[in-house]
């Protein structure tokens, strides 16, 4: 099954994103805690795109496709422009984040700890970030 959302680059739209994801995740075997975390991870990537890549310009948008099979969910986040390769980003230590006092720097750490696999590629000016979550555990 496939679900799509066009998300405008405005952080006030993030709650819409959570609702969209919540509806899809509800029907999976993931626990409430896991569903919550998956929503968070996808939001973190989208929030980064909105803020860091698109400067909160509400005229620009990013595309999210969610694919669900019996044992795997794939969240594909596409946008145009300057790509940011989350795989190449080296996360800081939490203690460094605390000392830096810049009220940020935890997002990608969360994404990497929550998701089972992350892919990033850029082709023809489109950046694609894919987040994988394994559903089956038995």
């Amino acid at each position: 099954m496939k679900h799509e959302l066009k998300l405008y680059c405005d952080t006030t739209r993030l709650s819409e994103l959570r609702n969209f994801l919540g509806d899809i995740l509800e029907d999976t075997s993931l626990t409430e805690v896991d569903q919550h975390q998956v929503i968070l991870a996808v939001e973190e990537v989208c929030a980064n795109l909105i803020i860091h890549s698109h400067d909160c310009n509400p005229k620009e948008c990013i595309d999210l496709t969610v694919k669900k099979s019996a044992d795997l969910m794939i969240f594909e986040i596409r946008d145009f422009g300057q790509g940011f390769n989350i795989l190449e980003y080296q996360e800081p230590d939490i203690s460094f984040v605390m000392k830096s006092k810049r009220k940020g720097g935890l997002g990608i750490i969360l994404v990497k700890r929550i998701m089972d696999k992350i892919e990033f590629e850029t082709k023809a000016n489109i950046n694609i970030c894919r987040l994988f979550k394994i559903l089956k555990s038995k």
Partner: protein
Amino acid sequence: MMLQIEKNIENEHSVLSLIGEIDASNSVELDEVILDMVQGGVRNLLVDCSQLEYISSAGLGVFMSYLEEFQEKEIKLVIFGLKEKVFQVFNILGLDQLIKIKSTKKDALEEVL
């Protein structure tokens, strides 16, 4: 309204209640309230999260940014009432090791008295 913040100044401590969802669009509101309280000379800050449904890294980052200052100024911060799903987010990052987290207001009060 996605986020509502209530401030209650009681005798020895202040209670901040976070109601709703905190994300990148409104984490600055949390920041302003905390800054206010610090400037107002708060000594013991209890944060009631029993009605907090969601917090993203933007909100967590606000708490993180005060930890050193709180330590220096000997301001005590205790978070209580976290829902399991929200607690687990603190847990993933190990923030439960950096911030005092209690189940109930009673337990939280015991920390600061």
